[in-house]
């Protein structure tokens, strides 16, 4: 029960999210809603990296690999089976299996964190160049042509009990937002469980956690797999928002974006990277409409500025600033109280002396 008392802020954010989910379609136009669905999918990816990197201390530069694998697995499964619910499940499972194989080699090989960053990034880039080459008719999984550079059209979500009923874009938005809120509450709960605390302790001091008897390789592998599942789910939402999946999900630009969301939002928080994803998404779409300033240029400058000047990220910086201000206010009140007490007692003494 203490966990739930601890999560008051989480539930507040979740309620705000639900209100947003209910109200947004009544205010915004359809185009904005479809755009928002894409942003939510990216926020899901940000959340997964916030968990894996911010809490697990696993510097995964290729989180997009699981995102993309999820998107491709969903698309292929949905084309073959025609049932979206099964396809979502398959997508998540495939992402988890992929992460378990990759994670086994990395964590049980005790690859250090910087190497791990480069390996995961490389895996993502190799998937990019690999899937880009699958344009021929021989690259086919069941009925699904992989389509190389052009990618595959993703079948829209349908109802598990009525496969002929395809969801409208607003409904997809509801589904996406619901998934995001559930994933957010789940991760916030997870990092407060015993498992989560061990994961955090490994991030803080690997050797000490190991000496206390925890199998750090296993814990790292598990948190990595959970992160991959969330990223894979994000991939499913992404290809539903965009309508297709292309090899571009694996490219360097998207890997960089994911890192930037987390850096900007702040490591060690969950809501920070999510907000970072939304913020950067709308910033890049605003920049995309003009052509004088290149997107890469702006993102590069943002990343460098944050690393050099605001390494903690926005949310922790603001939070620390607010805590500090509160402390100072309490301090001031206390000082004033002491001062008034002192003057009062001195006047009392004076009065006492006068009597």
């Amino acid at each position: 029960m203490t966990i739930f008392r601890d999560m008051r802020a989480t539930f507040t954010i979740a309620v705000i999210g639900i209100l947003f989910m209910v109200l947004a379609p009544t205010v915004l136009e359809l185009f904005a809603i479809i755009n928002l669905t894409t942003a939510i999918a990216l926020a899901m990816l940000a959340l997964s990296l916030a968990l894996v990197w911010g809490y697990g201390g696993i510097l995964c530069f290729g989180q997009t690999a699981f995102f993309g694998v999820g998107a491709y697995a969903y698309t292929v499964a949905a084309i073959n089976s025609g049932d979206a619910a099964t396809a979502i499940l398959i997508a998540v499972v495939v992402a988890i299996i992929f992460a378990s194989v990759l994670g086994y080699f990395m964590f049980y090989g005790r690859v250090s964190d910087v190497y791990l960053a480069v390996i995961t990034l490389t895996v993502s880039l190799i998937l990019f160049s690999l899937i880009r080459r699958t344009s021929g008719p021989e690259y086919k999984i069941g009925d699904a042509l992989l389509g190389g550079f052009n990618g595959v059209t993703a079948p829209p979500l349908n109802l598990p009990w009525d496969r002929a009923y395809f969801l409208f874009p607003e409904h997809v938005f509801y589904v996406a937002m619901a998934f995001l809120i559930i994933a957010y509450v789940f991760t916030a709960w997870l990092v407060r469980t015993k498992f989560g605390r061990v994961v955090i302790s490994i991030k803080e001091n690997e050797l000490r956690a190991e000496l206390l008897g925890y199998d750090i390789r296993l814990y790292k592998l598990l948190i990595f797999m959970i992160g991959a599942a969330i990223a894979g789910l994000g991939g499913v939402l992404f290809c539903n928002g965009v309508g297709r999946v292309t090899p571009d999900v694996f490219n360097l630009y998207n890997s960089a974006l994911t890192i930037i969301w987390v850096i900007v939002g702040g490591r060690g928080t969950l809501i920070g990277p999510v907000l970072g994803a939304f913020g950067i998404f709308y910033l890049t779409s605003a920049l995309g409409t003009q052509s004088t300033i290149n997107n890469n240029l702006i993102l590069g400058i943002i990343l460098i500025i944050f690393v050099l000047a605001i390494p903690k990220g926005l949310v922790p910086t603001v939070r620390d600033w607010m805590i500090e201000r509160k402390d100072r206010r309490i301090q001031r009140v206390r000082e004033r109280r002491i001062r008034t007490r002192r003057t009062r007692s001195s006047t009392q003494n004076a009065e006492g002396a006068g009597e």
Partner: protein
Amino acid sequence: MDLNLVIALGIQIIYGIANLTLISLGLAIIFGMMRVINLAHGEFIMLGGYTVVISTNAGVNIWISMLIVAPVVVGVIGVLVERLLIRWLYGRMIDTLLATWGLSLLLIGLVTSIFGASTATTISPPLGVVSIGDYTSSAYELLLIGITVALCLIIFLTLKLTRLGLIARGTMQNEEMASALGVSTPRIYMLTFGFGAAISGFAGGLLAPVTGVLPTIGVAYIAKSFITVISGGAVILAGTVSASAVLGGVNGIVSFLTGPTIGEVALLFAAILLLRLMPRGITGRFFRKGL
């Protein structure tokens, strides 16, 4: 299989290995000497390519622009980058990684803004083909193999025999001791980074006639060069060359048997397997005393 095919195939595989070595050396120097993983490595290669294309189109002899102009220009850029960005972050490996990634995006954006997103005017390889029986091999590829071997030799001799190489190696081994003996260590770091960048620019310049130039071409190199350097481990030359030989060999043979797509997968699997067996790279186990 007749002899000519074996020779042609052998050349192809050796070229693959030389190619890997060439694109990885600059990264290996910066990583091995300074423990800085430079994620803007691919962009240094890209800048080398652009330098060659632009200076050749401006009328400079293609050999001069490849062998001299490209490394000098990119080396100067490397020194600037070290002064402005890297030197604030020594000892903070992850922050360096992130900052150089920012630099990579910035350079891509900058070059795209200046030269446009598509290929700048390309230049063609300046040599013809050599025929081996029924098979042909590009003379330029043979030249690249030769240049790579020469480059490795030059780096080896520079580090081993010159005073600068000695001071640089000493600084990397024990910075405090070196500076107590009167070496200006910040200057050595600056020069090392510039030297690594120059090698990357040199590689980019040499490959520009083969691959063409694009603002985003760095991506094509970065994955392979990182795999090579990490599989190789911390020892610069022995690590890079041995990892290139293993990975390039696997890639070449599998590509010949099944096609380039599977070849690339084989390269990745070989690298992951290698790292599972030797987490500190090949030189973590062999040639530990090498250079």
